[in-house]
């Protein structure tokens, strides 16, 4: 797959805007998206990985499971139609639109500790997604044990025939977006990835937009 020259238009959303926030480069974000609402994540600057974890708002011990998600859909990549499942197999959110085309859920989140393995001890004190997840989780009474393998929106991790995989140049571009419909009330934690040692953010972390939308209910 190759990156697009220009961003295609995402589908128009009819209804009520519940919230519309810009997440600064390198920052965490969290919000409960209620069942039926749509979360649109917009890659404002292009090639910006958005690390994302999901929790059932009613019982946060039920959380996103990358393994359940890829096993159930029989494919390691996320895109339109992907159902994001919990560790108990429950559909939490569905990708209902995607102008980027492919997203990752194998590569996990960067951490100070994994940075030391991937790049060297000199990267230990750089900011990392796990730090953002810990900050966001704490706002909701959660902690390190609640962190599991996550989704990386707009991140490109191809798996080659011999199993070789890696974070490579992105497929995303300014203005590309992904729309997630909540199937249950879902607490969404995001780390707007601060990584500067691999191409997941084009070596330049940028802001992203988080738009929560309540679709119009059709008249009876």
């Amino acid at each position, binding site marked *: 797959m190759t990156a697009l020259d220009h961003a295609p238009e995402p589908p128009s959303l009819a209804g009520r805007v519940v919230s519309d926030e810009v997440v600064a480069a390198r920052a965490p974000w969290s919000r409960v998206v209620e069942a039926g609402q749509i979360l649109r994540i917009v890659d404002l600057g292009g090639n910006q990985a958005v690390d994302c974890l999901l929790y059932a708002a009613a019982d946060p*011990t039920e959380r996103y*499971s*990358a*393994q*359940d998600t*890829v*096993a159930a859909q*029989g*494919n*390691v*990549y996320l895109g339109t139609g992907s159902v994001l499942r919990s*560790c*108990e*197999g*429950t559909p939490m959110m569905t990708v209902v639109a995607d102008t980027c085309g*492919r997203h990752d859920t*194998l*590569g*996990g*989140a960067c*951490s*100070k*500790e*994994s*940075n*030391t*393995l*991937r790049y*060297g*001890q000199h990267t230990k004190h750089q900011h990392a997604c*796990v730090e953002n997840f810990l900050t966001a989780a704490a706002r909701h009474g959660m902690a*390190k*044990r*609640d*962190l*599991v*393998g*996550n989704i990386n929106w707009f991140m490109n*991790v191809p*798996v080659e*025939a011999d*199993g*070789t*995989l*890696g*974070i490579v140049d992105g497929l995303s571009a300014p203005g590309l977006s992904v729309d997630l419909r909540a199937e249950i009330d879902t607490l969404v934690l995001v780390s707007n990835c601060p990584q500067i040692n691999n191409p997941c953010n084009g070596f330049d972390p940028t802001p992203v937009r988080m738009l929560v939308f309540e679709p119009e209910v059709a008249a009876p």
Partner: protein
Amino acid sequence: MTATPAAARAHARAQAGAAAVAMPTIPARDAVDLPAGVSPEAVLWDEAVAAGGWASRVLPRGSTLRITDVEGDACAAILLHNADQPIERLNVADTVKVQWQAYLGVGSLLLSDMGRVLATVTTDTSGHHDLLCGCSNRAHNQRRYGTGDLHGPCPNARDGFANALAKHGLDRRDIGPCLTLFKGVTVLDDGALRFDGGLGAPAHVELRAEMALLVTVVDSPHVLDPRPSWVATPLRLTAWRGSPTTVDDPLWSATPESERAYQNTEDLHLGLTG
């Protein structure tokens, strides 16, 4: 025969010495069919696990755990935690990302979420393993087999993990992504997952503990196993004392990432012993 306490006691005691397919060897030094070079005195744990069963154990740094697919149709879902601080646990994403490799084999490191090596894969006679699909839960088995309860005929793996960890004071929040042995999956060009099944013959994998580990194992069908019925065969778990990987082992410096992972693990133990 059991109408009085004395009769019931005699009845209970008369059961001693019976054998079952799934049971531990106590004392462990009585284990039979040990690998060449392993003395009975070095054995720490020997336990047969029935299909659908689970077991967990704390193992010391340097010990080797052999997980055996005794009959050739087992599937071992495995969690690893740092036994001293279980907040540190297996991180499957870091394991594949740091090693630039989705598949498990001899020389693979099982990495924690703290940039350290939990265990090294030192032996593998199966070649059919999976880091991507995880284990079954109750809803999955309910859908696939009509039932998934632990007390039923098609127990799910996740609830087995939960009960095993509960006995160490841990709970569902401590169940992260797992690895599974003896059933393999391949990622195709378009990202599709192909279930490869198992070797179809007895096989074993050995893990060398690079820190004190809490190892939890469930024997349960792989989630992509297409067979309509719940099928699994027994596992045997055998562990013995040994030494962790050292700087003169080719695995230590096999890659820049492995070298730093072993160094980080050694550094942790300087703190524990110094």
